[in-house]
C-alpha cells in the first residue's frame, strides 16, 4: 500500500498540488482523475520522487520515502515500475533490449535467464515477433504495451502509469486498461493510474481520486461516481453526454 499524507508541491509560487492525502491499497486499480493541468502528473512524480514535495509525506508500505536518503530510495526504486505518458521507450534500443534493460542494469542473471524473463514479460502484454524492432517501427499501442512489459521486468511491487491509454483508439485503450488490471491482480501490485478517460474509470476504477486545480475534490469508486453530488466532478464526468444519459437511465434523475 502506498500512502500519501498532505502532499503540497509549489511551482513558481503557485501550488500545482495542494494538501492531498490518499491511500492506495494493493491488488486493485487506483485511479487519479482530473482535467488536463489539474496536477495528476505532478502528484505522480511526487510519489515517484522525481519531484520533491514542499511538504507532506509519502509512505511505501509504511516506509517513509520522503525521509529516505537517495541510497535508501534506490532499494525502493528496484520495486517500482513506471509507464510514462508516451511510453518513453529508449529509442536507441530494440523492443527486446528495452525490456531487458532493467535486468541488465540491476541483476546478475545469465543471458539465458534474462531472455526467458524478457519473453515472459512480452508474452504477458501480448507482443510477439517484434523483439528486434525499434520503438519507431511499432505502433503507439504496441509501444505502450512494451513499456508495460519493461515496467514489470523486475517484478515490481508498485506500478505507476501516467495516462496509459492516451492517444489510443477506444478498443486498444480498453485492452491496455484490462491488461494493467490483470497484471495488478496477478502480481498483487500496488497500482496507481493517471487518466482523464471516463471509460477507464467505469471499466477499472476500483478506487478513484478526483483532483481539481491541485486539490483533492472527491474520492470514491466506479460504483458511486455517477451518483456523486459533487458539482465539479459532475462537470468533469458529464462533459461527455453519454454518461449523463447513463445516469438518467440508472436513476431516473434530471
Amino acid at each position: 500500500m502506498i500512502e500519501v499524507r498532505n502532499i503540497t508541491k509549489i511551482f513558481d509560487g503557485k501550488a500545482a498540488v495542494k494538501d492531498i492525502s490518499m491511500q492506495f491499497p494493493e491488488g486493485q486499480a487506483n485511479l487519479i482523475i482530473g482535467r488536463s493541468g489539474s496536477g495528476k502528473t505532478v502528484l505522480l512524480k511526487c510519489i515517484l520522487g522525481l519531484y520533491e514535495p514542499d511538504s507532506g509525506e509519502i509512505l511505501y508500505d509504511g516506509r517513509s520515502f520522503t525521509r529516505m536518503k537517495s541510497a535508501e530510495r534506490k532499494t525502493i526504486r528496484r520495486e517500482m515500475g513506471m509507464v510514462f505518458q508516451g511510453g518513453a521507450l529508449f529509442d536507441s534500443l530494440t523492443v527486446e533490449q528495452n525490456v531487458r534493460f532493467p535486468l541488465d542494469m540491476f541483476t546478475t542473471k545469465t543471458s539465458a535467464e534474462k531472455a526467458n524473463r524478457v519473453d515472459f514479460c512480452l508474452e504477458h502484454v501480448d507482443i510477439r515477433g517484434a523483439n528486434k524492432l525499434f520503438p519507431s517501427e511499432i505502433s503507439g499501442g504496441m509501444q505502450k504495451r512494451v513499456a508495460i512489459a519493461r515496467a514489470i521486468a523486475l517484478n515490481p511491487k508498485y506500478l505507476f502509469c501516467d495516462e496509459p491509454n492516451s492517444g489510443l483508439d477506444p478498443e486498444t485503450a480498453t485492452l491496455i486498461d484490462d491488461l494493467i488490471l490483470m497484471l495488478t491482480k496477478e502480481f498483487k501490485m500496488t497500482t496507481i493510474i493517471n487518466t482523464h478517460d471516463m471509460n477507464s474509470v467505469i471499466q477499472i476504477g476500483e478506487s478513484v481520486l478526483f483532483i481539481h486545480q491541485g486539490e483533492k475534490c472527491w474520492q470514491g469508486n466506479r460504483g458511486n461516481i455517477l451518483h456523486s453530488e459533487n458539482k465539479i466532478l459532475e462537470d468533469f464526468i458529464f462533459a461527455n453526454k453519454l454518461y449523463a444519459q447513463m445516469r438518467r437511465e440508472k436513476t431516473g434523475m434530471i
Partner: protein
Amino acid sequence: MDWLFHVGRYFWMLGKTFSRPEKFKMFVRQLFHEIEGLGVNSVGIVVIISLFIGGILTIQLAYNLMNPLLPVYLIGLGTRDTLILEFSSTILALILAGKIGSNITSEIGSMKVTEQIDTLEVMGVNSISYLILPKIVAVVFIFPFLVILSIFFGLLGGLIVGPFTGVVSLTDYIDGIRYLFVPYYVTFTLIKSVFFGFLVASVPAYYGYFVQGGALEVGKASTKAVVNTNILILLFDLVLTRLLLTA
C-alpha cells in the same frame, strides 16, 4: 547573473557525471557505442575537410610567398605549422562542435522531453552519469586521433594540390614539411585537443539534459549549445596558446 547559474549547474552536472558507474559492463557497452557513433562516424568529414584545407593553404601560401628572395620550402613549412598549430585542433574542434555537439544535445534533449530520462531516474539509474560519462570519455579519447588524422590528410592535401596546380614542386613541398620540425607543436596541439574534446561533449550534454518543453526547444538548445561550445573553444585556445607557447 544568468550565466553564473548556468556555470554552477554545469559543474553540478559534472559532479554527478563523474561518479562510479551503476554497472561497469553497461558503461563499457555505452562507451564503445559512443566511440563508434561520435568518433568513427566523424572520420569521413575530418578527412574531407583536412584534404581541402591542406590543399588550399598550400595554394595561398605559394601565392603570398611569390617573392624570389623567399625560399620555396616555406610553403610546405607554413602549411605544416598552420595545420598543426591551429587548424587540426582548433578549427577542427569548431567543426566537430557542430557535428558531434548538436548530435549530443538533440539525443539527450529528446530523451529528456519524451521522459526517457525520467524513466531512468525512476528505475534508480543515475541518468547523468549513465548518459553523459560515456560520451565525454569517448570524445576526449577520440579527439587526439582525429587531430593526428587531420594533420596527416591536411599535409596530403597540400602534397596533391601543390604539384598538381604547379605552385610548388613535390620535392620542395616535402623538403618544406620536413624543415625545422618542432615536435613540441604536436604535443601542444594534442593537449589542446583533449580540452576541446571535453568541451565538445560536456557543454552540449548540459544543454540537452536541461532542456524543457518539446521538439522545438530541443532544436533551439542544439543551436545554443553549438554557439557556446564554439565560444568556449576559442577562449580556451587563447588561454592555452598563451600558457603553452611562450618561450
